[in-house]
Every structure is written in structure tokens, then in C-alpha cells.
């Protein structure tokens, strides 16, 4: 059994390494042909020899950060609601609902957004076609909401019951207990929720592809049409596989891979540090 587990571990680690090697290998022709600098130009015009992926990088960051800005406060609020600010009988159904949300396929959110949210934005604001950073950020925030809630909740579940008796005996109000004692004690959960939420937002393809409009430009306003790295790969992957256009995709893949890898490493470090300071189980 132990041997089997070891093999499984080595196998999984190898796959990640192979993936990294593969992406690097396919990005190499860009270095060799001296086109790597071109990747960091501001324009994506493959038919004029410009292969800048900066618009996609900035689009990805803008989308992930705004989705996080919408979803995080909402998620935190729901966690506090479940752990004492809301009526007790609503706590379980709320958590059940959140659990249920994790099972909804991304394409459903995308589909609903295309037919409801996008026309709403288009008809109520004079600028743009509705396919925009704002539309995608709103939709994506709903997608990453359960990730954030479940992570914060899993920490609070450990902390709150231990503290409640003491804090009640000391006459500390619920809101004080949560904001001054429980939340600071749950700092690992709070941080990891933000980081994982961000990672999930960066990695999502379908919502950006369906709702964000996919214009390869640096976003300036919430109503601008934007393109993310993931949507970019999905859109361009079917081109002539001998072209620079195609090779530049591997650079996008490499950037995405490195982003997710650093998100996970960061998470690991934080866990390590917080666990030394407090007693994690």
C-alpha cells in the first residue's frame, strides 16, 4: 500500500514537471527567433507580425482582481452570517446552498450571463456592447464565491465553537467575538481563500470566453471588452500550427502555469508560517 502511494506521488509530481518541461520546450523557438521581446508588445495583430500578449495578461489580472473584489467581501459576509450574525436556523441551509453552488457547471453561469446580464448592461449603459470586464467580473465572482466561503468557513468551524463558551461567559457580543477574536485567529483561512479565489479566477476559461468580449486590448473602463490568457488560448489554438501565432500560445500557457504554481507555493508558505505561530490541525 505504501509503495503504491509512493508511486502515485512520484507519478503526479512527474506529470507536473513534464508539463512544465513541455511548455518551456515549445516556448523556446520564440527565444531562438528573437521574438520573445515581441510577446511583451502592447498589440496583438498576428497578421501584421505583432504578437503582444500584454493585453491578455492585463485583461486576466483586471478580471481576476475585480472578481475577487466583488466576491471576497460577499463571501466573508456570508461566513459571518453563518457563524452567528444571522439567525441560527438559516446557517445550515445557507451552507448547503453554497455547497450546491460548487456543483453548477461553469457553462451554465456563462450561458445565463450571455442571455440576462449582458443585455441588461447593454441596455442600461450607453457605452459598449455589454460584453465587458464588468459582466465577466460579476459572473466570475459568483463562480469563485463558494471557494472563498468554504475555505473561510472550514477555519471558522474549528475556531468559533472553541471560543464561544468563553466569549459568552465574558459577555462579549457576537459581532465583537467574530471580528476581534475569531477572524484574526482564522488569518490562514482568510488569506488562503483570497489566494485560491484568485487562482480559480485566473484559471477559468469559459466565462471569460463567453462574456468578456475577447477584444485584445488593455482594459481601461469596466465596460471595455477584454480578453484573458485562457480565452486567448482557446480562441487561437485552432490556427495553423506552424505559425508564430501558434507558438506564442505556449508562452501564454507557461505564464498561466507559473501563476498557478506560485499561487500554490504561496499558499504552502503561508500555511507553514501560520502553523508555526498558531496550532493548525
Amino acid at each position, binding site marked *: 500500500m505504501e509503495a503504491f502511494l509512493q508511486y502515485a506521488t512520484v507519478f503526479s509530481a512527474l506529470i507536473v514537471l513534464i508539463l512544465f518541461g513541455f511548455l518551456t520546450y515549445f516556448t523556446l523557438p520564440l527565444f531562438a527567433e528573437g521574438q520573445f521581446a515581441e510577446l511583451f508588445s502592447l*498589440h*496583438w*495583430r*498576428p*497578421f*501584421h507580425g505583432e504578437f503582444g500578449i500584454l*493585453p491578455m495578461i492585463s485583461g486576466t489580472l483586471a478580471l481576476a482582481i475585480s472578481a475577487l473584489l466583488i466576491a471576497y467581501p460577499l463571501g466573508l459576509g456570508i461566513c459571518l452570517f453563518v457563524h452567528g450574525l444571522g439567525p441560527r436556523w438559516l446557517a445550515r441551509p445557507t451552507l448547503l446552498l453554497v455547497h450546491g453552488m460548487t456543483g453548477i457547471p461553469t457553462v451554465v453561469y456563462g450561458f445565463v450571463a*450571455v*442571455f440576462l446580464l*449582458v*443585455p441588461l448592461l*447593454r441596455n442600461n449603459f*450607453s*457605452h*459598449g*456592447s*455589454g*460584453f465587458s470586464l464588468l459582466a465577466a467580473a460579476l459572473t466570475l465572482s459568483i463562480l469563485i464565491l463558494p471557494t472563498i466561503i468554504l475555505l473561510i468557513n472550514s477555519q471558522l468551524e474549528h475556531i468559533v465553537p472553541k471560543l464561544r463558551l468563553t466569549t459568552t461567559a465574558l459577555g462579549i457580543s457576537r459581532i465583537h467575538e467574530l471580528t476581534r477574536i475569531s477572524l484574526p485567529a482564522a488569518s490562514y483561512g482568510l488569506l488562503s481563500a483570497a489566494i485560491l479565489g484568485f487562482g480559480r479566477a485566473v484559471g477559468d476559461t469559459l466565462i471569460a*470566453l463567453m462574456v468578456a*468580449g*475577447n*477584444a*485584445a*486590448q488593455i482594459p481601461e473602463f469596466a465596460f*471595455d*471588452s477584454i*480578453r484573458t490568457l485562457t480565452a486567448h488560448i*482557446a*480562441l*487561437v*489554438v*485552432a*490556427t*495553423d*500550427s*506552424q*505559425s508564430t*501565432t*501558434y507558438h506564442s500560445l505556449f508562452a501564454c500557457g507557461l505564464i498561466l502555469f507559473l501563476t498557478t504554481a506560485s499561487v500554490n507555493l504561496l499558499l504552502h508558505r503561508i500555511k507553514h508560517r501560520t502553523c508555526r505561530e498558531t496550532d493548525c490541525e
Partner: protein
Amino acid sequence: MRQQSFSGLFLAVLLIIFFTLPAVSGELDHFSNLQGNIDIAGGTAHIPVMKDAAKHIMTKYPQITITVAGGGSGVGVQKVAEGLVDIGNAGRPISAKEQKKYPQLRSFPFAVDGVAPTVNPDNIVSELTSIQIQNIFSGEIKNWKDVGGDDAEIHIYSRDEASGTRSVFWKKCLNKGTVVESANIVASNGAMKVAVSQDQYALGYMSIGHLDNTVKPLNLDGITPTQENAINGQYPVVRKLFMNSNGAPTPLVKAFIDYVMSSEGATNISNNGYIPL
């Protein structure tokens, strides 16, 4: 006596079946001694035509299995050249670079497809010149009122670089001009139809085969984008649809290609909104 008339009737029915069958499915006879698999992948515009042909063949000859997948023109060319599929479809000719890397590829054009500029049915504009369209896509004209429409922003919808539809529209309508970077990009003809049918001030373009009453094709320089005008050469924004094989096709693949190009295959192509060659 009664027995005899029955067998006479039976014989007559058999004879009728015998003589009418070839007339119904004459083009399919080439498959009678063949069996095996045909895997097809590539251009998405081809899929309805391929599926219908596959359905007819497999219904008559269950010993033949045909699978049809998408992926886009680039994927089609690469997969067939690497021997992963038997037929790789492309909505464009094989590029010079592909030709250099895979000199053994053989192309079989079988249909013509037109690409029409398309707006929402509620848009009062029904005709644009190609110069106007070029100026709109390059970002010089931004408002519908400048081309005879409502006072509203023009929402441009375009396609990704892998799209054969985009390729022909860019070459033959936009005259290889620039497309403004703020244009929305959709991933398929179907997605284009959804986007344009929902957005009153949209301007997009799509394959004539995909047009229906949820969208409105624009007359281009006074010519209506129809199959008839595409055939007689009046409507200029047209492209060919290709099947590609890796070297000389095997007898089974050859039979399939011949069937798609036969008169029965031509009916199938027209039924799907394309123009048989």
C-alpha cells in the same frame, strides 16, 4: 390459383424493390464491398455536411463507421497530416508553411460558402458599401447615424484568427484592412448569430449557410448575399470548403470523398446552405 397470384404479387414487389433501390441509393453502391472506419476532424463549417453524408452511408452499410469531430481548420490539417484522422477538413486552402512541412497532403474542394455582413433585424440599415464596412471595422466610423442608421454606437463583432470565415471576410470584404482592437471576438458562426440577434446595434459577419430570420444580412455594394449571387460570381465574399487526405486516399476514404462530391452529396451540401462545386 390463389396461391399463384400471391407469389406473382410477391415477385412483382421484389422486382420493384430490386429496380428502385439502385435508383434511390445509386451513389452509395461504391461502399458495398468496403468496411472499416473513417475518422474526420477539422473545420466547423463542414460538420453538418459530413454528418449527413456519414448518416446516409452508415444507415445503408453498418459495417462502416464514420466519426465526425470539429477543432477548426488548423487542427484538421495537422491531424490528417500526422495520420491521426483520415480526413482533415479546412475552410481555407493549405497554407504555404503547411505545404512545406506536409507535402503529401491532397486537397479536395467540394463546396462554396459565402460570408455576409450581418446586422440585427431591428436595425434600419440594410445596405453598406465595402468602403463603409472597412471604415467601420478600422474604427473611423463609430456611429450608425453616419451610415444612415439610428444615432447609436456600432458594436463590432469579429472572429478569432483561426476562423476561415474571418479569413475570407478580411481578405475579400475588408481588403486586408485593420480591425479595431476593441472589436468583440466570438468563437463560432453560431456564437456570432446569438450575439448579433441579441444586440440591436451589432455589426458582424457570418457564413451564408448559417443565416436565418434572427439576423439580417446586409446588401454589399448593392448585391444581396445569396447562394445564387455567390454561384454566378456577383457576390464576391466567397470561399471554398476543402477535405484533405494524407497522400492518396484509401479506397474507403476515396469512396467517401466521391460520395460527398456526387449528385446526391450535392443535394446534401445545398440542404445545409452551402453551394456544391
